[in-house]
């Protein structure tokens, strides 16, 4: 099969159910290189399931995923990291007795384990780099989660609600940071509930509701779409 070369990621007809519950139903979309794609939808819409499937933590029941033209549907999660697909977790996963520096050195794929000062600075972690990750505040843990992902030099960054609980100026900081990653050629798919962030950051948005993709397009148009409003607010 010949795929359009500028499509970094092609997702085709993904189905996933957990027992009797349909988590994703026939979800298809694609992402261009350098694009920032927002994934929104009410709670339980299947956003995190989608991200788990893209990162390889879950296998879809059917459907395919192509990355740079290669079928990665059954590729193990750690192997996806090696080809540049890196995720963050919605709930940060500190290791209590690791310092921030240890945590990031261990996350680095290079054996030398050199941590870029820039990542620490960008994420405001320079001052806490010798603290144990268990002692960080909630927001610092969120930043650490993103720092960990950036340390792995992603080409496709999958971000799961990294801004939840942030204050407005912190949101702006996260938005600018992710945009600067895009300048470096990183493609980003992010899940977010904070609409201000979605409209600032996303080039394009897809909306999931009860496992189905109900809308797709540029943020301000999608956010005013009647079916999207219904999905969030009910009839």
């Amino acid at each position, binding site marked *: 099969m010949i795929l359009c070369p500028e499509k970094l990621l092609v997702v085709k007809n993904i189905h996933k159910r957990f027992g009797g519950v349909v988590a994703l139903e026939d979800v298809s979309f694609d992402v261009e290189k350098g694009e920032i794609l927002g994934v929104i939808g009410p709670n339980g819409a299947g956003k995190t399931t989608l991200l788990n499937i893209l990162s390889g*933590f879950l296998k879809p029941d059917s459907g395919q995923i192509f990355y740079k033209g290669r079928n990665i549907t059954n590729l193990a*999660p750690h*192997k996806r*990291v090696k080809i540049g697909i890196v995720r963050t977790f919605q709930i940060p996963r500190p290791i*209590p007795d690791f310092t921030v520096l240890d945590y990031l*050195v261990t*996350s680095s794929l290079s054996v030398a384990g050199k941590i870029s000062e820039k990542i620490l600075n960008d994420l405001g972690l320079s001052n806490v780099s010798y603290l144990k990750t268990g002692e960080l505040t909630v927001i610092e843990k969120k930043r650490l989660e993103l720092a960990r992902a950036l340390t*792995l030099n992603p080409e496709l960054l999958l971000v799961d609600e990294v801004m939840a609980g942030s204050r407005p100026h912190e949101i702006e900081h996260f938005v600018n940071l992710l945009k600067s990653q895009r300048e470096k050629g990183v493609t980003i798919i992010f899940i977010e509930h904070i609409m201000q962030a979605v409209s600032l950051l996303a080039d394009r948005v897809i909306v999931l509701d009860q496992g189905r993709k109900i809308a797709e397009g540029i943020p301000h148009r999608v956010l005013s779409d009647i079916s999207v409003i219904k999905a969030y607010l009910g009839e």
Partner: protein
Amino acid sequence: MRKQGFSSIINLFKRPVLIFMVMLCFLPVLNLNPYVYHIVTLALLFASLAVSWGILASAGQISAGHSTFFGLGAYFSYFAMQYYNISFFVAVFLALIVADLAAFSIGYLTFRYGVGGIYFVLCTIAFSAFFSELFITFREFTGGSLGVSLAIVERDSFYYFTFTSKIPYYYAAITLFILCYLTVSGLRVFMKRLSVIRADEDLAYAIGIDVFKYKLLALLLSATFTSLAGSVYLVFIRFIDPEGVFGLWFSVEIMTVALLGGSTPFGQLLSAFILIPIGEVLRAIFSGVSAGLNLLIYGLILALIIAKAPEGLSGLLKRRGS
């Protein structure tokens, strides 16, 4: 250039361990009672066993059957030396290959199918029981449950590493411990990644760690040093029996030293140097008085130490340090 390489090896030592090792190296100058060197050699062997057990434990895998690799190391060194007149230094490697093959089978079967936690513990016990029975059954080669003595005719043979003096074994044990220690401290990133696997397997996958491969490597590394300790034990004690080297009790002894030591090699070293002499001295004093009395007292002392250091000696040292 060469000098730089040497100093970077020295830098791998934490200062207390370095001081401890240097002191041990010069201990034979004092020309103490041979029994002292015997006990210190045993303590060093157990310290090495605890450190190598700890490599696998860093990955969150608790083995209660480490005697498997110790027994294979000891018995296959014996086979090679006794039956084929192979030099100790070659026999060590042959035995190590057998131990690693066993480790690979155990690791492949359990880690591939995600057998973890308490079920991994059970599997390791089952494997050591299997080898124990196997070696009791083939008594023409193994001496059955009576065991075998290493009967090397030559005295003081470097080829067979057999000496009348205890000192060569003493230095062999120091070398083995230093080898274990340098491996653990040299593979810093590897060990850190094992800790990530122990703390959070999903996180490990998310940072690109091949969890299966790392667990298997940890087990192989651990089995390698355990097998080496078995080989040294064979030439040191010159007697092995299946129950003694494959038995559950031996695995428990390794675990006791390792768990009391805690998470750092220095803690494990101290733990071995506390528990082994206490065990030996108690046995010498009390085993004649009443059977099992020495173990009772040993248990009481162990309980007291654990009450004072619930996170092991490493935890105690850390708390003192900070």
